[in-house]
């Protein structure tokens, strides 16, 4: 019976050997385990070198990392806590405005305004979305979709926070190297920190809430409080991204609540691989430069992101990182049946 074949996947020997403590006995196996991590960390730390070549490439790399923060925040909320947030731009905008307000109205210097804006913005976001936290599934998705729209309308209607003009002349970072490394180090710290957090007990509860909140409730743990903490962490990432952007470009306006900024992180997450946390980072490092290439098409950019998102979610829903991880860990062969 030739012609009937199936694909057989077997874990590579080295993967199995490097799973236990004995990995420490062989340099090769240590290398196997460390290689992807070293590649990621080293690659990101080397990013500012690109800047020496062309300042433009450096800017693009930084905006990719800003999007990566938003994407990690989306991935964390959607795939670990079960809250699909279609309004990531809300976090971003609130963070940006918080930084601008602290810097311009209160005169705080950059190194104080940036962290304070992240925390303050996260508190504001958490409080604003808190009434909707009992919602699940599509209800949460669409209610969060409303928040950035609402923020834009409110700023226009009340003409507060600089009105439609926004804030200009926010003080930037003292040096370009510092500017780049603040973001890179925090992205890496956030990424690995979040991974560790999700593997510990509190993270376990968060994932349990996604899978079966009734069971968590039955175990005597408050579901809404747990979701509140999750939301705070996610908005911390988003608000930091917004605040950093405000300091980087020295300006923030109602375009910080734009639809692009809600959609792009989602596309990056889906392309990179949902539920991996690294995937969103890699996805945004791919999609943001692509978006820069499409800059001359203007409004069509959002449409292109949407098209990529649709195609990937239908045809290759696992994403890039799970695919690569499988290739790295397993050997595939075709077997005759």
């Amino acid at each position, binding site marked *: 019976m030739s012609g009937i074949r199936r694909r057989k996947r077997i874990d590579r020997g080295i993967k199995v050997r490097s799973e236990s403590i004995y990995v420490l006995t062989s340099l090769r196996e240590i290398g196997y385990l460390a290689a992807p991590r070293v590649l990621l960390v080293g690659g990101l730390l080397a990013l500012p070198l690109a800047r020496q070549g062309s300042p433009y490439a450096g800017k693009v790399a930084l905006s990719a990392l800003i999007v990566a923060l938003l994407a990690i925040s989306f991935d964390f909320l*959607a795939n670990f806590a079960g809250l699909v947030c279609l309004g990531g731009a809300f976090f971003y905008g609130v963070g940006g405005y918080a930084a601008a307000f602290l810097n311009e109205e209160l005169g705080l210097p950059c190194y104080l305004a940036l962290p304070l804006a992240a925390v303050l913005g996260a508190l504001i976001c958490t409080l604003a979305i808190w009434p909707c936290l009992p919602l699940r599934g599509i209800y949460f998705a669409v209610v969060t979709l409303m928040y950035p729209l609402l923020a834009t309308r409110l700023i226009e209607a009340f003409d507060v926070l600089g009105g439609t003009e926004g804030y200009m002349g926010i003080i930037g970072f003292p040096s370009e190297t510092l500017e780049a490394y603040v973001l890179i180090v925090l992205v890496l710290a956030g990424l690995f920190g979040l991974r560790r957090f999700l593997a510990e007990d509190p993270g376990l509860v968060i994932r349990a809430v996604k899978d079966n909140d009734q069971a968590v409730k039955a175990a005597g743990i408050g579901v809404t409080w747990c979701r509140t903490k999750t939301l705070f962490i996610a908005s911390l990432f988003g608000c930091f991204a917004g605040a950093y952007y405000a300091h980087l470009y020295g300006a923030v306006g109602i375009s910080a609540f734009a639809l692009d900024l809600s959609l792009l992180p989602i596309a990056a997450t889906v392309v990179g691989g949902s539920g991996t946390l690294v995937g969103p980072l890699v996805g945004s490092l791919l999609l943001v430069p692509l978006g820069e290439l499409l800059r001359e098409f203007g*409004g069509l950019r959002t449409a292109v992101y*949407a098209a990529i998102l649709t195609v990937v979610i239908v045809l290759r*829903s696992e994403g890039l990182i799970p695919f690569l991880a499988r290739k790295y860990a397993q050997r595939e062969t075709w077997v005759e049946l």
Partner: protein
Amino acid sequence: MVEILVYGTVQSAGLLLMTFGFSLVYGISRLPNFAHGALFVFTGYAAWLLRNEARLPYWLAAALALLAAGLLGVLIYQLVLKRIRGMEMSEVIATYAIGLLILESLRWRGLRGTTFTLPVLAPGAVNLLGVPIDYQRIAVVLLGFGIVGALWILTKTTRLGLALRGVAQDEQAAMLLGIDTDLVATVAVGLGSVLAGAGALILFPLGSIVVQSGYQVLVWAIAVCVVGGLGSWAGTVVACLLLGFAQHLTAAYGKPHYQMVVMLLAIIVTLVIKPSGLLGRQKELEERV
């Protein structure tokens, strides 16, 4: 006072036209069609193109546009939704992305400004209880409630309606009884798209066709669904009446900017006081909270 009553009713009927397709599809096949708003704008623009560029008579252009909307809905189901059925998160993201794809392509294709308008069904105005009102707004009220009534009769009396309701209640049981649930879901999504299109053709003559209304329709559709309670026809109608009057009052006595705030407040208050919606039942409560 009479004016509030008349124009509030118009606003409510308009809301019903915009949102009914969405709640129908979600109520029947549990498919959140986030492309609903995009289909709304798409139909309006398609009708405009057919009328002004292909020079077709308006009734033909409208019919073709409706057909196109229905086909687009069926395509969305067959090509995309069918493959990711049951993965709620992917359904939301995929339909939202399709909606954005349609809306932003239309914007790129040249749908900007206020030059795109559709003709009214009948020009002129009449005095109703001392309030001047044009015929188009009367048509909105009649058609809004008329379409909902017609669909209600359809689902209560025909075989197709029975199948739709069966799938809404329990998909697996319906499958056991020989109902092709895929076909029913396709019909539901197609029907929802045609409803979105019909709403567009009736409502766009009151203003101009803008991309922005696509997002607005989506947000309002969800607001109506949350406030009214899913799967409940009466709930949808009551929610439309409530929110319609609320909208009219905010527009009349405040700024139109506040309409979005009113919607969000309505959602939050509903969730805090009665999470299952005004007329929703226990089953829906489990799903959303």
